[in-house]
């Protein structure tokens, strides 16, 4: 199913009341005197994609780093798959992280490893009883999913920006995550590559039934990939809604974003 078909379907068929996979209540986070998140509430259901928009430095990346346990919140609760992320550590946190895929803005591929080794790394380290043949099958399958089978023996430095992003996503998909966190998946890419990445995000949602948070400035990406869209304004969320509901012309806060992306840059 392509993006256009999916866009037509998503509004009329919201997720049918399944389990909440991420539940955030009154989340606050500051860096020194700079208040970044000031009482965030959010619920994400199983199989649901939500796009989080906002200005640079508004705390979008901080939000997903808190969800993945890379940062600790100052206050509030963050429940991921029923577990409070900031209250667990060690092996419990490690086990939870295996269910969360994190696609970094910079792709964060291991420079010293080939594509094959990058993909094998999380698998070998977390499923130590796997045979080499099984690992190779998993690598080939996930590379097919992202359409980059030919790059298997290349080094990250030999890949283009779009290819690096896709390999970064593939590295998380190999663990079959229940939740995907994308940090600026289309930043710095040309429009055609952006469309490929958008299609991949949708494919991941459908094929793996994963719930996703997509941090982005790119409204086309948000529109194409997300069931719901929200925006961080002064440390708080606008109430999540459909793309059309959030970016209606009467809302002055979101209008600037919309105009810049779709009409003109003045």
């Amino acid at each position, binding site marked *: 199913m392509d993006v256009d078909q999916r866009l037509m379907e998503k509004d009329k068929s919201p997720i049918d009341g399944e389990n909440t996979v991420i539940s955030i209540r009154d989340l606050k986070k500051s860096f020194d005197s700079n208040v970044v998140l000031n009482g965030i509430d959010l619920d994400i259901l199983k199989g649901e994609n939500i796009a989080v928009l906002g200005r640079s430095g508004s705390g979008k990346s901080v939000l997903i*780093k808190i969800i*993945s*346990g*890379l940062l600790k919140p100052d206050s509030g609760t963050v429940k991921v798959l029923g577990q409070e992320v900031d209250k667990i550590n060690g092996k419990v946190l*490690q*086990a939870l*992280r*295996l269910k*969360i895929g*994190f696609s*970094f*803005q*910079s792709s*964060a*591929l*291991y*420079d*010293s490893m080939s594509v094959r080794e990058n993909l094998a*790394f*999380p698998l070998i*380290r*977390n499923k130590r009883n796997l045979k080499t043949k099984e690992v190779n099958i998993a690598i080939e399958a996930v590379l097919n999913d992202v359409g980059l089978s030919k790059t298997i023996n290349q080094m990250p430095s030999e890949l283009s920006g779009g290819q690096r992003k896709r390999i970064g996503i593939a*590295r*998380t998909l190999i*663990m079959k995550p229940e939740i995907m966190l994308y940090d600026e998946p289309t930043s710095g890419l040309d429009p055609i590559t952006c469309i490929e990445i958008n299609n991949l995000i949708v494919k991941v949602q459908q094929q793996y039934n994963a719930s996703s948070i997509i941090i982005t400035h790119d409204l086309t990406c948000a529109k194409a990939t997300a069931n719901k869209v929200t925006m961080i304004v002064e440390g708080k969320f606008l109430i999540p809604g459909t793309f059309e509901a959030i970016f209606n012309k009467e809302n002055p806060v979101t209008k600037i974003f919309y105009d810049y992306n779709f009409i003109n840059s003045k």
Partner: protein
Amino acid sequence: MEQDTENIEVLPRQKYFLSKKMDDFFTALYSVNKFILQYFKEAFSTPIEFKELINQCYQVGCKSLPLISLTGFITGLVFTKQSRPSLAEFGATSWLPSLISIAVIRALAPLVTALIVAGKVGSNVGAELGSMKVTEQIDAMEVSGTNPFKFLVVTRISAVTLMLPVLVLYSGLVGMLGAYLNIHQNELTSFPAFVNSAFKTISFLDIISSIFKATCYGFTIGVAGCYQGYFAKNGTKGVGMAANTAVVLSMFLIFVEEMVIVQFVNAIR
């Protein structure tokens, strides 16, 4: 009068306990101690990253061999050449093997090898981890269910700590070989006579203290490199600074440790 009092500017609350530099120094000291404690905690907990440890030992040990061989050989050869005129004045060139063995085994081999390893491995570790930090590779490792401290830091510190004594012993032997070649060329001393004379003056304590020094230097180089790299920030500039600080700090601490350990060994000799 009341108005005047109101207009007096209220001074901001003092931000620092002592001064900024002193506060930073003690904060860094606390942070390094915490880092070292975490190293020991992670190093002795399962699972042990044995494969990566072997890989790092190869990187530190085998890949340093050419450089260590060259510097060790030249050190032994040049030290012998420079010492000869002074001993020749007293007709005591037969003491050269003893003098060289004491100098090389007790001081030169550990110090020169440690400084070479600090420059080569310390900068490498600092830059590698620093680069991984600023490009979010360490975060990526953490979210993929791997403990980056155990995988990256523990293995590197352990590898340098384990391999430096081996490199020091090797460097000592190569240095002695350089000395032998120079002595054989000038005094026509046979190899058995050289070995007999050289090792007669070396005690077990000299070897043990040399290994102990090398272990301390290795640990210092590993901790300095990993600490600087693991906490690198400010992009590529931070990576350069991490590599640079790792080398400078390691070298400084090696000399301080040399001074302390020599005092300690002399006291028990």
